[in-house]
């Protein structure tokens, strides 16, 4: 089993910019696009999937480890930057899992280049304005409150304390602030969605897609799932009961089983 210690940090150059990529496990590459608070740590689902897959997690510019790229000012800029990395590494088409902002990023990348991804797993993705409810504003609450609100019931989630290594160290405080600042540069307004995304996805994306959503998601309302399904033909929606915005830790066994089965 590929534990946390097996994760290696690679430094890549993409044009004039740098990109730090975490690499763990072995087998066919799997791209993981992290959420808006940054890279949350190597969890049980990473360990299990990495038995058969090499998990590549790029740490986005400005989110701490990778220096900021001055010209990246919106989610599409970031997506195009990462797409260049994938092409230059000869990784396309690659399977992808994107979480929250990372799910939005995956969708933007797929809309921009339909040949980039072979299969997509979008976990409670931001990016589309929910027809009912608003995406929770991370900028008016402390990072730790946002983190807590991302699960249905923090007390009952076994892996909660492992997220962001507990979230309370000085270093993690700085990392959260880096992530929040860069997310503000990318997604301040409109907040966490792009009005053109449903139109750009429609008729473009052919990759088999699995949408995973907790029924009690307080961050991205599940009402957005219907728009994703309408925009990505054939996308399957897996809804999880008694689950918030983090199915991968709140319902990790079911998440692992479904994702393994989908990715094959």
């Amino acid at each position, binding site marked *: 089993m590929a534990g946390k210690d097996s994760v290696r940090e690679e430094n890549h150059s993409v044009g004039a910019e740098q990109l730090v990529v975490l690499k763990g496990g072995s087998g066919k590459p799997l791209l993981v696009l992290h959420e808006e608070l940054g890279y949350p740590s190597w969890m049980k689902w990473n360990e299990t999937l990495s038995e058969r897959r090499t998990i590549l997690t790029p740490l986005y510019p400005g989110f701490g480890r990778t220096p900021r790229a001055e010209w990246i000012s919106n989610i599409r800029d970031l997506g195009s930057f990462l797409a260049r990395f994938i092409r230059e590494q000869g990784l396309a088409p690659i399977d992808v899992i994107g979480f929250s902002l990372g799910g939005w990023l995956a969708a933007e990348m797929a809309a921009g280049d339909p040949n980039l991804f072979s299969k997509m797993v979008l976990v409670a993705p931001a990016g589309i304005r929910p027809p009912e409810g608003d995406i929770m504003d991370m900028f008016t609450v402390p990072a730790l409150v946002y983190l807590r609100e991302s699960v249905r019931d923090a007390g009952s989630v076994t892996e909660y304390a492992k997220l962001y290594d507990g979230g309370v160290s000085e270093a993690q*405080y700085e990392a959260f602030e880096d992530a929040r600042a860069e997310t503000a540069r990318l997604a301040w307004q409109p907040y966490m969605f792009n009005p053109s995304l449903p139109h750009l996805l429609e008729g473009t994306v052919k990759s088999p897609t699995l949408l995973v959503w907790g029924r009690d998601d307080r961050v991205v309302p599940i009402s957005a799932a219907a728009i994703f399904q309408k925009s990505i033909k054939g996308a399957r929606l897996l809804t999880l009961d008694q689950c918030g915005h983090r199915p991968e830790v709140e319902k990790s066994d079911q998440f692992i089983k479904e994702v393994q089965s989908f990715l094959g």
Partner: protein
Amino acid sequence: MHLMWFTERQYHYDPEEEPGRSDLLEKQILRNRSFFGLPNQNFDAETGSMLLNQYIDEKVYSEDLGFDGLMLNEHHGTPFCLGSVMDVEAAVLARATKRAKIVLLGNPVPTVANALRLAEELAMIDLLSKGRLVPGWVRGAGSEQLANNANPALNREYFEEGVDFIIKAWTTPGPFRYEGKHFHFRFVNPWVLPLQKPHPPIWIPGLVSPDTVIWCAKKRFPYIALATQLEPTVELWNLYTDQAAREGYQAGPENFGYLQPIFVGDNQARAEELGKRFLYGGAFAHFARPEWMFPPGYNSKEATRRLARLAAGANLPGKPITDVIGQESDEEIEALRQGVYATYAKTRDQLQMIAGTPDYVIPRIRKVLEVLRPGIFSFWLDGPVGAKDRMRCLELLGKEVMPAVRAMGKELGLVDPFQRKPGSVPLAAGRTAERVAHAESLAASVG
């Protein structure tokens, strides 16, 4: 020396006339741990109208008393300050007064989406006041970014570009096109331009952010410290002076200003009681909750690192105080209030509030002047105090305190920016700059 009068124009009820409402409002602010974000259903328009007019009357009276400057500021979404569009008040004062400078410290440039509109507003105020405008700029508190939906991660970029653009709009013959990073104007040709040439003098207020101090020194803008602790203020003055030397000039009192919380009354005990009300609702400590004071990207990396070290402390961003808000008992809120007022002795001893009779306040102001040696000095009164006591405070300041302070200014050589242009004293390369502040006076006893 340039002497000014300032108040935040707080929304309050007179504790003598309406003790119940005053008490309730304070408890609501304490419960909210923040002036910012208090639900506006608590705003009574009759009271707001009365207060705004009262504050204008005070400004007019302060000119009659001989103050040189009428200082205004701006905050949004908060009972801390009723001046949510300060330029409106400045326009009223432009016509209601005749002599005093109208000093705006400052317009929150990053929160104004249209910097050209701001240039036009200020030009109109300068014309209406017949050249009495002193515009200043601020980044705006973190909470202003939320209240105006201005991206805090771009705050400093907006600030620096916005200020440069406004000066350009005032001084570059139009029409011209402007393509900046954040501001884009295809047709810059404001017809209404300021009376003062090449443009009105610019002063910058702040809370000792090193980045802003260095920026001011580079631009030769006077820096006005807003009631900051004396010791760090001295350090920042030194930072300014050293940067000025690198720019080739000797900084002097004309480059510095200081805002001093004060309350003056006829009776020492009563004046202290009223001065203590400066701490109402938690005062500046409860200006806004930490997560609103420091929205994402608002702070520099260095400032974030400093906060990270404090993050384990109470009431700081790492610790979500939102958990307790709305859950506390009346007793807990009362204890919080007592805790706030218990800090008064320290506030007084550090000269962060000087309250008393003229005889009491004058030597203490002297101490501040001896340490900081500012050419600009502003008196600041706030907290829920009735109109009569406020007016008496102003009167005593004008008739008894101000003449004494003017004499001190003369004696200490505290020239202001109108007596000597900031940045106009050359300093030859390689020569060591003289420090403006006197840190050694910090230890001296008052009187």
